[in-house]
């Protein structure tokens, strides 16, 4: 029988387009302080630290260096993960399950505003330097290809994708942490500026500033903290092939594999029935449709129908992104850890205006690394 790890402290900054008064270590400091306060504990309760960073987005080599001190890690065992915060959280869970540590603090942040002008260059650097970079490919154009492939394969329309933005930006109206909250119609999304066909401005998440911190604890210590523990019940991650041409972009096999591992670990057989709420990585509107299919909430190609049925609305059978998701604010690298934080707040009943119902037993959080969802991490959180 595996030992268990719980989230016992959550700290999030608000997500904003540009937090001009704070540099990125100061953002992390704010999230760390908030998480400790939420946990009702001081740094002395924490025996190790993992910071999740990215040298390109931070514009710093050894991007974990500036956040070592502000995360309280100066005199503790400490490590650094590069990639989405869901992966950083995984490493912290492993450190605790190894028996080497009892309570750990994990952070992720984004100061996207400082890299916004060069964002296409940042994601262009993820492409093959010889064949693809010179074409000017970046995250948005890669995802435009994926959107087109997905829409063609399953006969999905731009309007059906636009409905994701309508739902999520509407949900964000009740989330004080969200950057972008709008009451939209499908026509508004359709009429927004074309960025890379078929993706329009309101199909695309903004680049944001924000930091998040989670405090994780083993079962023995979980009771020492103020909030009820939110248990990490299952996790899986999986990576697809690298070259876009080696992948079927309408497919999401690595997500299916990651989800199936997480479900197996958490004992979930019927995700649509057993999961009460999901926070998925909707960096682009169409991705929420594609990912809900990969997560097994519906059959392949049925994501738009699932949305149209109302099932993924906040009051629906399986609410997806009640917080507003990434379309309402996308602090890259921290994006997936915000999903974990939002899912955990739902379980605690602390999600405020975006709370889906009184009693959330099981929640899903999802993070992505790489281009057009090359690598996925799926978490199942539970209240017992």
């Amino acid at each position, binding site marked *: 029988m*595996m030992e268990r790890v719980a989230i016992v402290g959550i700290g999030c900054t608000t997500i904003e387009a540009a937090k001009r008064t704070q540099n990125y270590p100061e953002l992390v400091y704010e999230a760390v302080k908030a998480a400790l306060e939420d946990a009702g504990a001081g740094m002395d309760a924490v025996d190790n630290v993992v910071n999740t960073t990215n040298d390109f987005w931070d514009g710093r080599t*050894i991007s974990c260096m500036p956040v070592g001190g502000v995360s309280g890690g100066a005199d503790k065992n400490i490590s650094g993960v*590069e990639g989405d915060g869901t992966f950083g959280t995984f490493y912290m869970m492993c450190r605790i*399950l190894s028996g080497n540590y009892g309570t750990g603090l994990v952070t992720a942040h984004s100061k996207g505003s400082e890299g916004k002008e060069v964002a296409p260059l940042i994601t262009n650097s993820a492409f093959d330097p010889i064949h693809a970079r010179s074409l000017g490919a970046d995250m948005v154009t890669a995802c435009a290809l994926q959107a087109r492939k997905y829409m063609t394969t399953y006969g999905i329309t731009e309007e059906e994708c636009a409905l994701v933005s309508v739902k999520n930006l509407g949900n964000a109206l009740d989330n004080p942490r969200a950057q972008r909250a709008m009451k939209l119609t499908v026509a508004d999304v359709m009429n927004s500026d074309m960025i890379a066909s078929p993706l329009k401005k309101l199909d695309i998440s903004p680049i944001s500033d924000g930091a998040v911190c989670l405090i994780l604890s083993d079962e023995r210590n979980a009771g020492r903290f103020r909030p009820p523990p939110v248990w990490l019940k299952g996790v899986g991650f999986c990576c697809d*092939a690298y070259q876009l041409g080696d992948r079927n972009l309408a497919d999401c096999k690595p997500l299916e594999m990651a989800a199936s591992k997480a479900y197996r670990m958490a004992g979930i057989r019927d995700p649509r029935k057993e999961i009460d709420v999901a926070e998925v990585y909707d960096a682009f509107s169409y991705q929420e449709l594609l990912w809900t299919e990969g997560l097994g909430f519906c059959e392949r190609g049925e994501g738009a129908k699932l949305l149209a049925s109302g099932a993924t609305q906040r009051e629906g059978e399986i609410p997806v992104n009640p917080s507003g998701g990434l379309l309402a604010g996308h602090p890259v690298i921290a994006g997936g850890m915000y999903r974990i934080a939002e899912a955990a707040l739902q379980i605690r009943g602390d999600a405020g205006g975006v709370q889906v119902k009184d009693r959330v037993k099981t929640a899903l959080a999802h993070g992505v690394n*790489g281009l057009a969802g090359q690598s996925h991490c799926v978490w199942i959180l539970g209240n017992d």
Partner: protein
Amino acid sequence: MGKRAAIVGTGQTDHKSIRRDVNGQELIHEAVTRALEDAEMTIDDIDGVVIGNMDHFEGINYVDCWSIDGSGGYLKPVMKLCTGGTTGTTLAIGGYNMVASGMFEKLLVIGWEKNSESDTTGAIVTATDPILDRGVMAGALAGLAIEASEYAAAYGVTPRDAARVSVRDRGNACNNPHAHLQKAVTLEEVLNSPLISDPLRLLDMCPRTDGACAVIYAGESCAEKICPQPAWVVAATNRHTYSRFSDIKGQTGMVSLSRAAEELWQKTGIREPLKEIDVVELYQPYSWGGLKWMEDLSFCGRGEAPKLVWDGVTDMEGECPFNPSGGVISTNPIGATGLIRCAEIALQIQGKAGKHQVPDVRLGLATGFGGCFWSDCILYSKKKPE
């Protein structure tokens, strides 16, 4: 409680200044293939991949995703760890924790760097705080030169003492077919080599190398089936004390290494490291570290390292050989460098180190150095931990 974990296979590339014959993915593939061959496994046996390097050296973002064709991570869990110079030992500690957690049984851990594709100093400069540090402490050399100067002033240590370390390691490298620089040097050659940053001379310093290292960690349920002599992890500790170079206090030794070592000795019950540990692979990017850092590790008292080194205690035939592989001063593919320290200790424990084998190794220490004077320590053992 967690599971015990061990290194069951290692693979290193042919380390060189410039590997024009391979791209980054192919370099990684070379190390992975050799590690799998060493463990007599195939990629299908591997249930996860952890990889690390320093992004700006090659200018590749999301390396965990980019490296799939070389790492074999297709449709496997893959993640990236990175902490600058300590990346290699961060990977080794990460691999250990992930297998000890029970989440993986057989984990492939890869460190790599193709330094020839970078402007190393240009990339390292951005590690420093743009406002407080960059104007005065940018690059890898300045901090080391200050440390050496302070150490020399405090204990009367001379450049000749440091050169003795360089002579030792560069001599050892001649017995390691994987070493990048395999050329023995004399004291006079070190002392007469070009001055780079006073008191550091060219032959006091590590090179920059193209290279990769892969190790396979296995859990206690299968390690002994895969490998007759696994290299078990006893404990791992680290400290990344400072976040800015301007925070570093002089005259106090490398705080991170002292504190990480203190915790390691306390966790493992080791009282006399020099007597109890059989071999050390010290992440020693410059000769002076081979003196001062022995003291920070409590292998001897303050100011006593030069005498031990001159007496041959750390030579191949000595009581506790340091850097039988030739160390970092001979081979330095940055993201792999720390992991090579661990792979070399595993080879020593397995008795597979060939011409640079130290006899009868029971306990071996690997360390990592990087970032803002940061330190990692990992202790490996021949005997399965209790």
